[in-house]
């Protein structure tokens, strides 16, 4: 039977830093570990060194896109210099409210950056996998990049309204009208494909 859960409030002193290391939902001050969330105390023992103390809440805490995280976003408008997107998922957790992001023209591809045309890489309504490269300054949004093989367009609809099938890394074909469209296609990892 699981031991009764111990609940804690923000500011509650859990233990000293000599007994454990601080995990998520905690902070250290004056050599002690304090709780930072109102939730359940969890102590995990690590093989190397001290156990890790963390405080968890059952409801998924709102994740903010962090630098280096792979996010799923939807293109809302394009321009000759950049594409504006709405960030929908961070990793595999959906966000409760969408954040805005920008993919600059030079961040779309890793090679031949000056020959890139945004119109031939993304279109409004495409679902794109991108990586966060910067949180952006006060005026701009999150800066994203698709300059890797695994990043780029995953779902796109043709003008006929049918979901297109990728043919190569830069082309997608509509299965109904057989017209080819240019996109920067992502090479999705095999474990994520449902076959």
């Amino acid at each position, binding site marked *: 039977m699981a031991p009764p859960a111990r609940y804690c409030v923000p500011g509650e002193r859990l233990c000293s830093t000599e007994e454990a290391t601080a995990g998520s939902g905690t902070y250290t001050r004056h050599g002690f570990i304090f709780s930072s969330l109102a939730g359940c105390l969890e102590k995990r023992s690590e093989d190397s060194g001290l156990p890790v103390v963390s405080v968890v809440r059952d409801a998924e805490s709102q994740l903010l896109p962090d630098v280096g995280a792979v996010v799923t976003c939807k293109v809302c408008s394009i321009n000759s210099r950049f594409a504006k997107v709405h960030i929908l998922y961070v990793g595999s957790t959906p966000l409760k*409210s969408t954040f805005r992001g920008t993919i600059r023209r030079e961040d779309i591809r890793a090679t031949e950056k000056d020959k890139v045309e945004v119109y031939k890489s993304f279109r409004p309504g495409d679902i794109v996998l991108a990586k966060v490269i910067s949180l952006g*300054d006060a005026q701009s949004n999150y800066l994203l990049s698709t300059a890797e093989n695994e990043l780029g367009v995953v779902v796109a609809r043709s003008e006929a309204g049918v979901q297109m099938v990728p043919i190569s890394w830069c082309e997608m074909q509509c299965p109904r009208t057989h017209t080819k469209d240019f996109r920067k296609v992502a090479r999705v990892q095999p474990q994520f494909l449902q076959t």
Partner: protein
Amino acid sequence: MPLDHRRLRGPEESQPPELWAAGTGAVPEKEEEEDAAPQDPCALRPLFARAGLLSQAEGSAYVELGGGTKVLCAAWGPREAAEPGAAAAAAAAGGGRLLCEFYRAPFAGRGARRRPGSAAERDAEREAAAALREALEPAVRLARYPRARLAVSALLLQDGGSALAAAISAAALALADAGVEMYDLVVGCALCRLPGPAAAWMLQPGEPEERRAVARLTVALLPALNQVSAVLGGGQGSPPDDWAQALRLGLDGCHRLYPVLRQSLLRASRRRDATAAAATTTTA
């Protein structure tokens, strides 16, 4: 004797209605002033706090002080910072922003001091919102939410004195209930000093005492870290020892109120986990 059918006849004996009205609390003003004098200045009014009651907000709290101060507060977790221009100052510091709102219900005061909806009322609300923000900002870990904004909205349902202090406590509870990372809970306590040559400071004044007071003070404390986050108020000048003694009294009051708020938060966490577990077992 002929009966009178045109009139309803009352009972032969009648008594004045005031006999039956004793103790309802709707007592005329002069009786309250007599009761105010023997009140113990260090006595705290009973506090009721409950967290996690609104379903439409991510975190919520309701605080009620004995004697009729009721505050309802709701908090929302990190959302995208809306106005990029105004966020320049906060983004320079690298953290998120805390937006506070304080509203007074039109039926909050008995005999409204200001007409609800007037400019003076809105100014007072804005001032209270700024005070709320000053008290809460040191407690929230804004550095963990870059470029995000956290919103807190407090609604004063009934004003029976010490409204701002109750709002501070309710707002801190609501933020903790919403899952926002905080350094500590914030406990608010109000004091006032009545007119008179040797009047002492009084904890948690009621509404008539607040109206007659010459000096008012609201103290916000982070109890576990023993840090004061805000000291708000003012009034008639007096020697600094007097203010220091008032501050000590206020901090003591905050420490005494902290266990109640802590218990309500723990109960809310347990309740939320129990409902989540029940939901998963019914769906699974």
